[in-house]
C-alpha cells in the first residue's frame, strides 16, 4: 500500500480549514468555499470528508461555545494537525514539481 494521497475536494477542505485559522466549523467552511471558489457544497459531502480526514489524523476538532443561531447547539471547530500540514506541503510540492516540468506554458495562452 502506498502513501495516502489527498483527493481534490479533500485538499480544498484542508486548505480552507487552514485559511479560516481556528474558526473553521462546518457551515463556515462551506461559506468560505462557496465564496472563494464559487462552487456549491452540500453539508453531507463536507461532513463525510471532514470525518475521513479526522480519522486519518490530518484534522483535529473540538467543540466550541453554544450559539443562539444554532438553537443552542455547539460548533465543532476543526484545525490542521502537523500531519495534515505535512501532507499539504507534500501535495503542493508534487504539484509544483509537475508544473516546473511542464515545457511550454505559453502554448496554453495561444490556444
Amino acid at each position: 500500500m502506498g502513501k495516502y494521497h489527498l483527493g481534490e475536494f479533500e485538499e480544498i477542505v484542508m486548505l480552507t480549514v487552514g485559511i479560516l485559522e481556528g474558526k473553521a466549523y462546518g457551515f463556515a467552511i462551506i461559506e468560505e468555499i462557496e465564496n472563494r471558489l464559487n462552487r456549491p457544497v452540500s453539508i453531507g459531502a463536507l461532513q463525510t470528508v471532514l470525518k475521513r480526514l479526522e480519522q486519518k489524523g490530518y484534522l483535529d476538532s473540538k467543540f466550541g461555545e453554544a450559539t443562539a443561531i444554532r438553537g443552542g447547539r455547539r460548533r465543532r471547530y476543526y484545525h490542521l494537525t502537523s500531519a495534515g500540514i505535512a501532507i499539504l506541503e507534500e501535495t503542493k510540492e508534487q504539484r509544483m514539481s509537475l508544473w516546473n516540468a511542464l515545457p511550454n506554458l505559453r502554448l496554453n495562452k495561444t490556444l
Partner: protein
Amino acid sequence: MNKIPLKGPLKLLRLFCNQDYLEEIEGDLLERFEKRITQNKPAKWLLWLDVLKLLRPKIIKPVFGRRKLKQNNMLTHNIVVSFRSFKRHKISFFINYLGLVGGLVTVLFIYLWVNHELSVDRFHNDSERIYRLVSDNGGSATLLNTSPRFARELESSIPEIEFIVNSSWGTLESSLIVEEEVYSTEGEFATESFFELFTYPLTHGNPATIFNEPNAIILSEKTALRLFNSTDVVGKTLEWQWYSLEESAVVTGVYKDVPNNSSAQFDYVLSFNVFERRFRDRIARGNRVSRTFMKLTDGASAETVNQKIHQHTRANYPDFHGDPYFVIEYADYYLNSEYENGKPIGGRIELIRLFIVIAILILIIACINFMNLSTARAALRTKEIGVRKTMGALRKSLIFQYLTESCMISSIAGLTALGILFLVFPLIERLLGQAIQPSLDHKSILAFLSIIFITGLLSGSYPALYLSRFNPIQVLKGPFFASSGDQWLRKGLVVFQFGTSLILIVAVLVIYQQMQFIQTKDLGYKNEFIVNFETKGMSGDKQQAFLSEARRIPGVVKASGISHALFGAQKSGANITWEGKDPEQEVWFEWGNIGYDMLELLDIELLEGRFFSKEFGNETTKVVINKATKNLIGIESPLGRKFSVGENDYEIIGVTDDFHFQSLHEQIKPTFFLLNNGWSMKLALRIQPKRINETLPKIQNLYSKFNPGFPFEYTFHDDDQSELYTTEKKTTVLTKYAAGLAIFISCLGLFGLVSFVTERKSKEMGIRKILGASGGSIVRAISKDFVVPISVATVLGVGASALLINRWLNQFAYRVDLKWWFFASAILLMFSITAITTVSKIIKVVIANPINSLRDE
C-alpha cells in the same frame, strides 16, 4: 424564529444520523437555513435536500446502535488483552493450547463416531415404528431367525402390526452371473413391502410393481454399475447362484447405495417368492429360516404386541416349548443387541459409553491444565486485577475478561483440532476398522461450537471466579499469598489428572496382556495355516474329486469340508437325547457336519476312541463328542452309547479334548460332530507354513478348474477368528491413544507448574544456596509440592484401576489374572515420565548461580 417547518427534516435526520455527529450537523443545517432565509431562498426545501444528501455511509449510524458498540469495544479490549497475555506467557499459552487441542481432537472425533453409531438405522422413515421379531433362548443370546409362516399368522391376527416383511436368514454370499461373467455379491431375499418399510430410495423402477415379477431382483446402484456398467438396467436378466441353487432373475429396480450407517449391507434384494419355492418344505414345517421385520401402527406399543404374540402362541400352539418370540425396535437392536428375558442388557452401547467417558476425562484433564496454570499465575496478575478494580471495574467485567481469554484459547485450539481431525480422520477410521459417516449438518456444527465454547467456559470458570474475588487494597498493598484452600484445590486437580492417567496406563497394560493371552492361548486345536473357501457351484462328487486332487499338491497337509460356516451353529438341546438324560434338561450344543479328515486337519486331540475313518465303512450313523458333552452325559465310558439328534440315533465313537472355537468370552460348550454325505459348504485346507506362497496359486488353479467362472475367495481361519474380538481391538486402540494423550496432557500441565514454581522460588533457592543448602535439599524443596499429590494419585489410581479393569476382565470366561507388576510397571512408567518432564527445570535451579537470582532489588 420560525422553528415549526424544521421539525420534519430534523426528525428524519435524527432517525439515521450518527449520534456523535448530530449536534454539529444540526447546527450547521440551522445556520445555513437562517442564512438562506435572509437571502430569500426556498430555505425549507433546500433543507430537505441537504438532509437527504446527508444519507451517506460515513454519517448514517452503525447498524447495531450505540449501546452494542460499547460492549463490542469491551470485547475487543478483552481480546487484545488476551493476546498480550498469550504473548507474554508463551509457555503456559502453548501448554494450555496443546492440551486443549489434544482434548478437543479426541472429543470431536468421538462426537462424530458416537453420532454415527447413534444414527445407525435411524434414517428410515418412521424408524421408531419399525420392529423386528426375535426370540430368546433364556440366556443372553438373542435369536434373530424366525419362522415366516408364524410371522404371517401374527400379521393377520394382531391389529397393531400394520404389515410385515420377511427376509432370508441373513445376507447370502452369492454370485450374480451376467453373460458368463461371475460377480461375488451379498444380497438377501425379501417380501413385497421391503422398500416400503425401509427407506432405501429407488432410483429406477416403480415401487408399486417391482415385486410383481416372480423372479424380481432389485440391485443397488453400485452393483448395477458393476454388472451392467449402467444404472438404467430395468428389464435386464441375470443368473443368480448360491451353492447348488440357481435361478434366473429379472431386474425390476435399482436403489441408492445403502449408507454406511445402515446395519444391513446388501448388494441386491431378490423376491421372497424364490426363497419360498426353494425352501417350501422347511417353511411348511415352521422352521426358523427367515428374519421378520414389521411396522406397527401409529401409537401401538411393543408391550401390547408382545402380549398378543404370547396369547397367539398359547392359543394356537399349546405344546410349544421353543424359544418365546417378542419384538424389539429395529434401530435399537444395533446398540442393544443383548437381551435377557426380553429386557435389553447391553451390547454396543457399552462401548459407546466407554468412549464418551474417556473423551470427557481427557477434556477435563486438558481443562485442568488451564485452571492450574491460570490460578498459579494469579500472583503475577494480582496487581493488574487490583488496578482494574480500583479504576472501577466490576467483578462481572473481570469474570467476563477471563472467560473471554479462556474461550479464545479454546477457539484457537478448536480450529486447530478441526484441522488435525480432518487430516487424521481416515487414519482413525482405519484404526477402528469402520467407515464413519461424518455428518456435517448444522446440528454437528452447532455441537462443535458448543463443545468448544463449553470447554472455554469450563476451563475459565474457576480462574475467573477465583481471580476476580481479590480485594484490591490487599493485593495492591503487599505481596500476595494464595490461601491454603486454593492450593489444596490445585493439588486435588493434579491428583485427578495423574490418577486418571494411571488408570488408563494400567488399562492399556491389562488389555494388552489379555489380548496377548487370547492370541497365544492353546485353543485345543491349531487354527493357523488353514485356508477356508466356499464350494459355491461344486456338487458333492466334484468336491470329493477336488479334495483328493488338492491332497496331492505338495504344500497341502490335509484337506476336508464342513457343511456350514466353521462353527457358531447351535442346536437346541430339546431334541438331543442320550441314555439317562433328564427329559426336562435343555442344553445348547455346538455342532459340526464335517467330512473325513476334518478333526485331524484341525489337530484336535483325541481322548478316547477314534475319529471318522473310511476304513470302517458307512460312518454316517456315528458321532464324535467333546469332553464337555461327555461330562454332560456323565458316563465313565461313553463309547458305543446311543446319542440321538431329532429322529436319528448315532453311536458315539470318539471323545475329543475340549477346544475353543468360540471367542474366549464364552465357556466351552458341549459339542458333537456328525459325518456329512460328501457335500460341504466350505472346504478347508491345512497348508505347510513355509510353502504358503507357492501353494495358494496351485489351489486357486485347481479351484478354477473345478469351479469355472467363480472367483477364488479364501480366508485364513485365524483371521476369521480374530474377528470375534473386534470390540476388544477397538477398546485396545482407544485406550492406548487415550492413555498416551492423558499422560501427555498431564505432563504438559506439570511442566507448566514446575516451571512456574521454579521461577517464583528462584530467590528463595538463591538464599538457600548462599546459606549452604546442598543440591539434594534444593531438589527436595522444589519437588515436595508435586511428589505428594502424585503419590496420592498413585494410591487412588491403583485402587480405582484394579476395580475397573477387573470388571472388564470378567466378561471373559478365560482371562489373565491381575498381577502386582501390572500396577508396579504402570507406576514406574508414570513416575519416570514425570521425572523426565520436570528434571530439566529442577536441574536448572540446582546449578543456577544464586547471584543471578539475587542480584536485583
